[in-house]
């Protein structure tokens, strides 16, 4: 009897702890659940409230800051799973319901979304695992005050207009030079802030010259193509010219006049800066009037868990969330890019000077959203980029490939050779 006391005690404590760990959260019998983060909490709550106000058969309950992966692993997946277009292809592919049968059964019109956004959600096996909520795309960000200050006192012919859809990369480089203000041996203001520690900027230049990260069937890295090298060279030349800086956050600090690429997620912080007058323009093209799909597109999406007991109800809510009513609430609550054409059009109805920043919504909805291209869906894309490509790119911009008398082109050549050799070696046995 005595000998049993200790194991029983230990067992009880273990069992109690295990119950405590698994008992919280998860789906219950007659409600839909979805996970929301701190950044999406506000609009998700509003959308859920609006949906529940319609008195649906199965109401929806958001789970804030909950561990979605933990729920899924514990076989308690929320009915609606939050992800993005890349993870819908890879990470969550096996737990997300294919939405094609729902779309076909109802003849659901997916053309209500921007075409490239919805296209980016179709996975390599032709299925669609989610519908878009918000999206991020690359744009040219600029500080209006710095442009105005440059133009002050100059005759019209010498003035520098705000960036627009006619700008080429040459125009961008020229503006960088003009907007750079030297101060003694240093620089008081740079033309642009460069970002080289992820693909956000250099991939734009690479694509502008006709190159890309990988080939079409995603079986090989193509950053050593001539086009890609020219893209890298353009960006490197910009740095070497002294008209751009690698120092982070110089655009928002008011130390750099432009930022190529950027992220929609930064709009909130930009708008929180007092007196910071900024706007956006479509990405400059290589040749005037020849626009290529150079911007990346990443969509935040919700999909339906394939273990959900309320799949039809989840589909109804998904349509509400990503449809007009849900999108209207979202876009009235946060500053973001809508994936829904109708919302985009409505936003542009407001007089330009009455819009909050960015005011040039035409640059987004009329131009750039039509020239986007998703990142590779290759399962190990992120690992390959982070481990083998990004370090080499950073070293290039640090000047680590520079040897006595070597030109920018030679340094770029050395960089892509190393990055691609390492990446190809990795692709032979990715793990």
């Amino acid at each position, binding site marked *: 009897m*005595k000998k049993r006391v200790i194991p029983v005690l230990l067992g009880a*404590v273990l069992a109690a702890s295990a119950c405590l760990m698994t008992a919280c959260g998860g789906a219950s019998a007659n409600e839909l659940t979805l996970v929301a983060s701190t950044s999406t909490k506000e609009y998700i709550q509003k959308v859920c409230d609006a949906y529940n106000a319609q008195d649906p058969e199965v109401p929806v309950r958001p789970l804030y800051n909950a561990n979605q992966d933990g729920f*899924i692993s514990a076989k308690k997946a929320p009915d609606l799973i939050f992800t993005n277009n890349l993870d819908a292809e890879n990470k969550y592919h096996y737990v997300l319901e294919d939405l094609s049968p729902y779309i076909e059964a109802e003849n659901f019109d997916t053309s209500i979304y921007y075409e490239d956004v919805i296209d980016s959600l179709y996975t390599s096996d032709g299925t669609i695992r989610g519908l878009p909520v918000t999206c991020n795309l690359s744009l040219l960000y600029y500080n209006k005050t710095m442009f105005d200050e440059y133009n002050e006192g100059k005759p019209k012919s010498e003035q520098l207009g705000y960036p627009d859809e006619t700008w080429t990369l040459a125009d961008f480089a020229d503006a960088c030079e003009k907007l750079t203000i030297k101060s003694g041996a240093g620089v008081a203001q740079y033309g642009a802030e460069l970002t080289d*520690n992820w693909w956000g900027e250099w991939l734009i230049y690479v694509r502008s010259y006709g190159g890309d990260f990988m080939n079409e069937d995603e079986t090989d890295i193509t950053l050593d193509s001539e086009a890609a090298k020219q893209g890298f060279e353009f960006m490197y030349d910009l740095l070497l010219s002294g008209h751009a800086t690698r120092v982070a956050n110089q655009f928002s600090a008011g130390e750099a006049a432009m930022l190529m690429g950027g992220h929609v997620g930064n709009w909130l912080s930009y708008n929180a800066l007092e007196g910071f007058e900024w706007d956006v323009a479509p990405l400059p093209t290589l040749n005037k009037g020849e626009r290529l799909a150079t911007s990346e597109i990443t969509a935040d999406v919700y999909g339906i868990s394939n273990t959900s007991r309320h799949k039809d109800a989840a589909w109804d809510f998904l349509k509400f969330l990503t449809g007009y009513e849900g999108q209207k609430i979202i876009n009235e609550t946060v500053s973001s890019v809508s994936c829904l054409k109708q919302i985009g059009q409505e936003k542009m109805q407001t007089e330009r000077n009455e819009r909050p920043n960015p005011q040039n919504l035409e640059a987004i909805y009329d131009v750039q959203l039509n020239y986007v291209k998703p990142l590779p869906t290759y399962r190990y894309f992120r690992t390959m980029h982070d481990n083998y490509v990004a*370090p*080499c790119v950073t*070293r290039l911009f*640090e000047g680590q490939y520079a040897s006595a008398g070597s030109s920018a082109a030679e340094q770029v050549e050395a960089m892509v050779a190393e990055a691609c050799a390492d990446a190809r070696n990795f692709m032979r046995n990715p*793990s």
Partner: protein
Amino acid sequence: MQRRKLTHAERRETKLFFLFLAVPLAGLVLFYYLPAVMTLFQAFTNASGYVGVELEWNGIQNFVNVVNDPIVWESLGRTLVYAVTSGPVSLIVSLIVALLIATDVRGAKKFRFVYLLVFVLPGFALAALYKNLFDENYGLISSLLRDMGIRFGYNYSPTAMATVILTSFFTFGLKMLLFYVALLGVPVSYYEAAELEGASKWTRFIKITIPAISPVLFMNILLTIIDAFKAFDIMFLFGGENGDPAQSLMVFSLYLRKTAITGNNYGKGSAMAILYFFFLLILVGINMLLSKKYVNKDWD
């Protein structure tokens, strides 16, 4: 020999003993041993962050992948560099500081507080401070060095590790405190006798101080080894999950995390953890063997 029968009071006390022991033991089992066993299990499977994928037995493939991964070796190399530079120097610095504040010099107590303050400050606050000092572009120290023609900073890949090593020299609080306490335990009479015999300060240090504090010295060496090889927070705070710039701060523990979490490869990450555990076990074992030989247990 027949065991004596416990009295009622003794039986009650034993029960209470095990009851109190059960709670922390359950915590240990739940949060340390169980995850450790799961890690061992996962190391032989295809466990990944790709949720919903069926778990399959993978044999030793994860271990083969670890051995064949060039970044594993690079990150291990960086860890070794960090360990053999920051470890010994911080040990020496902490011993010197402990020797200084253990003296009877006026004001020594105030210095004790100053040095210990660094130990009390949270790592992220210190890292933020160091980042401001050693930012290649605008850091106070980096700017001074730049004026002298030296490019140095945590965000410049050739010098990033040197920056972190440099900052680790100043985080010696705990080791210094242990040395300090050990030094207080050395009888003053030994020094007086040695002085009368004409022993120099250096001889007194080598022949009296070192043997007297040798148990603490070896414990500090052990702590330093473990600290250095487990270095994660400082690298993460300086270089983020990628050990930026250009992976120059990608030490083994950081790469382990990146492989398992960001790379969604729990199997390989677990295999890395298992191999690293045995690697550290060997190092600790060597230290224990050396301590058996060199620690003076008869001192008193």
